[in-house]
């Protein structure tokens, strides 16, 4: 039933994209397309939600006579798929709602409207697919449509470059997955997932498939060092698309990873978890460090996606480790943590990108150094953005904290693992997780403080006003979700139980059992957390204190200029900028990771020109891996190029040589 509804929704989305093609010419097209997308995604969302909550076995698979002739296209919805369908369509619905307002400012409608619904549909298809061909088909189609959206504003040179890097990386990933499926399917070509599950896989196969899946899904999700396209492509797209790409598409990649490695490949082996954990920890830390060095709001958010993907994969890696040693309860805990974070990140990352989009439409500016004081201009939007910041910084009582807390709890179970490498690795991973969490908080103090607080750093801010109601509705809806998932995590965990039961044959204790909506990973005596209670306490304490203060203390209040320490300055330039805010952390970490160099040139006495502080950063990944590859390809291409400037005689002699060579081979062979 569910799968049928979902398929119809996909079909409807594709139809809408055709509709967009025709109606894009008129302004009303925006309303039609996004309205339709909103409705359809909402339907799909509820269908999936019901499926997820109701639980039960997977739907019988539907086979359509499309795609590979003798295989057909298989569709199926099990708990895992249902969960990700919820994530996708939640993102899709909110993004469409947001776009109802945001889309009005779109200058290149005819380059956005046709592709947006198709993009949504493709993401749904990936999750619905139940055979390799359909999966890859939708996967690549997803990349293609999102590429088109990235290229929407193609006149900006940087966007074209972003689109290029993106699509090349995407097809690289697809190729890797293609090889992986080739291994899983075997030479006979058993392309259905059912056949792959049934087949036994040799250790070598397993290793190869894991590596290839890491390459394939990792390049989509943004695992270091395959993340380079992410900060280029996500900001280039219109903001609601950035939200989808960052908040949802990366999750589809995570889905692909889980589906292939945990579901199709069968129980993992311990070393696989080591690989995943190492990569994940590196990703989390590097991602947040990149973000700290970044002053473009949307790029910063994109880098944070990298970080959060790292956190998610840490959870997955832990799940592998526990699963490999049959500690199913622990594996379930880790997996739940990862999936919970998938949900959370999709929610607050979309929220943050919406906020960034609101800022961008208000000011036509993404560079934080030009912003500031927006909290006065757009109070509501900034409130919603603030909620997002708190959530992504993993602070209680919001949802970001819960998933990280669960991850920590999973890490604390690791001493029971017999394997020594893991014993040493996992605590280190925990430390890196804690470090990246703290750095993330620092980064969002920067992001919110510089963008919304302080005084306007340039004139662009003055033209900004409160954003439109649709956008606000979308943002506050997500913000309230952040809060709800934070104070009532038990429900989410319960919903995930059947899923983990399928994948790691274990699940966390049923949370509704524990009193007051507290969540208990293993046992109450071991650890528990009650978001609701904490929230209530904080609220009470705040209200109490406020009330008390207002009763006891004087109400007198005087507005006055900020204290200037005796230096009367009018200039807003004296404020801390994003760059200067990040300076201490840059000194601590940047010098190691990015070879950050600061060069200060102070003019000689008497020279009135300002002193210049120049900071240069080097992207280790790009300069270490990608630039050399590009150079190599270019060089070999140039070298081969000479072969089209030979004389006819030259070509003839090549043919001649080939002939003689083959004849010689025959002569020697026979």
């Amino acid at each position, binding site marked *: 039933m569910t799968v049928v509804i979902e398929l119809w929704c996909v079909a409807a989305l594709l139809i809408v994209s055709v509709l967009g093609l025709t109606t894009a010419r008129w302004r009303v097209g925006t309303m039609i397309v996004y309205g339709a997308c909103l409705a359809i995604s909402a339907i799909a969302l509820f269908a999936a939600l019901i499926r997820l909550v109701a639980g039960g076995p997977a739907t019988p698979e539907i086979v359509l006579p499309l795609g590979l002739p003798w295989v057909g296209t298989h569709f199926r919805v099990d708990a895992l798929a249902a969960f990700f369908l919820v994530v996708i369509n939640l993102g899709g619905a909110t993004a469409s709602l947001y776009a109802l307002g945001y889309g009005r400012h779109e200058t290149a409608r005819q380059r956005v409207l046709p592709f947006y619904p198709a993009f949504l549909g493709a993401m749904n298809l990936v999750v619905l697919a139940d055979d390799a061909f359909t999966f890859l088909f939708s996967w690549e189609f997803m990349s293609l449509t999102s590429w088109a959206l990235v290229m929407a504003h193609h006149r900006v040179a940087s966007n074209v470059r972003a689109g290029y890097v993106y699509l090349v990386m995407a097809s690289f990933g697809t190729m890797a997955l293609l090889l992986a499926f080739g291994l899983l399917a075997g030479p006979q070509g058993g392309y259905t997932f059912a056949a792959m599950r049934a087949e036994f896989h040799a250790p070598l196969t397993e290793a190869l498939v894991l590596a290839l899946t890491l390459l394939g899904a990792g390049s989509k999700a943004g695992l270091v060092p395959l993340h380079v396209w992410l900060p280029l492509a996500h900001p280039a797209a219109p903001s609601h698309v950035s939200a989808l790409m960052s908040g949802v598409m990366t999750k589809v990649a995570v889905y692909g990873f889980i589906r292939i490695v945990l579901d199709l490949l069968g129980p993992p082996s311990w070393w696989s978890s080591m690989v995943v954990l190492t990569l994940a920890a590196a990703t989390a830390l590097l991602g947040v460090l990149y973000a700290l060095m970044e002053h473009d709001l949307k790029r910063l958010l994109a880098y944070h996606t990298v970080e959060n993907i790292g956190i998610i994969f840490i959870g997955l890696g832990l799940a592998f480790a526990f699963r490999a040693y049959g500690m199913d309860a622990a594996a379930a805990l880790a997996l739940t943590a990862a999936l919970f974070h998938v949900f959370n990140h999709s929610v607050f990352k979309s929220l943050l990108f919406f906020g960034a989009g609101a800022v961008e439409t208000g000011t036509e500016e993404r560079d934080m150094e030009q912003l500031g004081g927006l909290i006065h201009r757009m109070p509501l939007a900034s409130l919603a953005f603030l909620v997002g910041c708190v959530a992504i910084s993993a602070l209680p009582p919001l949802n970001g904290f819960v998933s990280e807390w669960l991850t920590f709890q999973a890490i604390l179970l690791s001493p029971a693992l017999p394997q020594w490498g893991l014993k040493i690795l996992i605590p280190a991973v925990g430390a890196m997780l804690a470090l990246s969490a703290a750095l993330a908080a620092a980064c969002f103090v920067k992001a919110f403080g510089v963008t919304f607080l302080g005084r306007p750093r340039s004139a662009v801010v003055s033209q900004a006003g409160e954003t439109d109601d649709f956008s606000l509705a979308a943002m506050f809806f997500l913000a309230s979700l952040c809060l709800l998932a934070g104070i009532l995590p038990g429900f989410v965990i319960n919903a995930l139980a059947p899923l983990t039961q399928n994948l790691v044959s274990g699940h966390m204790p049923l949370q509704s059992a524990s009193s007051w909506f507290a969540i208990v990973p293993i046992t109450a005596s071991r650890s528990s957390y*009650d978001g609701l209670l*904490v929230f209530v306490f*904080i609220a009470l*304490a705040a209200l109490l204190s406020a009330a008390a203060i207002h009763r006891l203390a004087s109400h*007198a209040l005087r507005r006055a200029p900020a204290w200037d320490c005796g230096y009367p300055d009018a200039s807003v330039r004296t404020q*801390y900028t994003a760059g200067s805010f990040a300076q201490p952390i840059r000194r601590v970490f940047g010098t190691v990771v990015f070879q950050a160099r600061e060069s200060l040139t102070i003019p000689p006495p008497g020279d009135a020109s300002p002193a210049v502080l120049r900071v240069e950063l080097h992207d280790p990944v790009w300069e270490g891996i990608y630039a050399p590859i590009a150079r190599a390809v270019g060089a070999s291409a140039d070298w081969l190029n000479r072969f089209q400037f030979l004389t006819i005689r030259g070509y003839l002699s090549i043919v001649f040589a080939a002939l003689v060579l083959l004849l010689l081979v025959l002569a020697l062979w026979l």
Partner: protein
Amino acid sequence: MLLVLLLAPALVGLVGKVKARLLRRRGAPILQPYRDLMRLLRKEVVLADNASWLFRATPYLIFATTWVAAALVPSFATGLLFSWSADLIAIIALLASARFFLALAGMDVGTSFGGIGSSREVMIASLAEPAMIMVVFTLALIAGSTQLSTIAAFMASPAVGLRVSLGLALIALIIVALAENARIPVDNPATHLELTMVHEAMVLEYSGRHLAVIELAAALKLLLYISLIACLFLPWGLAPTGHGAGTTFVGIISYIAKLAFGGVFLAIFETAIAKMRVFRVPQFLGAALMLGLLAVLLRFVSASL
């Protein structure tokens, strides 16, 4: 909860007094902080022109989160009401959110001071928190729980022997505590010299009742850390759950004694050591992080032996 609220300023006063004595000054009376708070409450609030609603809301948020956190630490008895509602990690996170808002408030007015304070604060925090988490790991792994009451009960029990990792964790915890409470050598609560100040720079724009609330929150935080150290590393005299009045009384007395001891120790330490440059702080905290990690690793290894 009220108990910690009442005790907090006294602790600050005590520290000040002892420091003064060590410097051969008479120093302000121990109750001085209460008077300061009262005076601040009576004063009018001078609000910068540019201050936003966030700026005014922050003090209460900070106070609330810190208070909740402090209330969750078993002061004189384990298994207090609702102590299960948040574990050690949650407590750290609560303090982190308090800091988050404080740093934001520091940037709100848009002066360079607030910026200095915030950026240095988050830099310090970004190292202090992981170190703290590591300490938590160590304890949690030893006690097999992250519930403070459980840990405390376990530490009180004879089951816990003398462990290297515990020692390392203690040192790390102390370092973190110093950093978190903006004490010398990381920060100097008494100075207003912009090159060195961190915490004070952030709250520079606050005045009147807002400042009072923030000061109180700071005092609470100090109390929290000391009682944390106390209940974790000298958990004696903690009244067990389901306790009679007598044990409770003993618990309270011992608790106050511990606080006093902690305060004195802090004062001595502060007078004995000098403030360090801001950019030497990372090494200092990095050391804490390393100690914590080392402790955890040792713990992992020993656990598997």
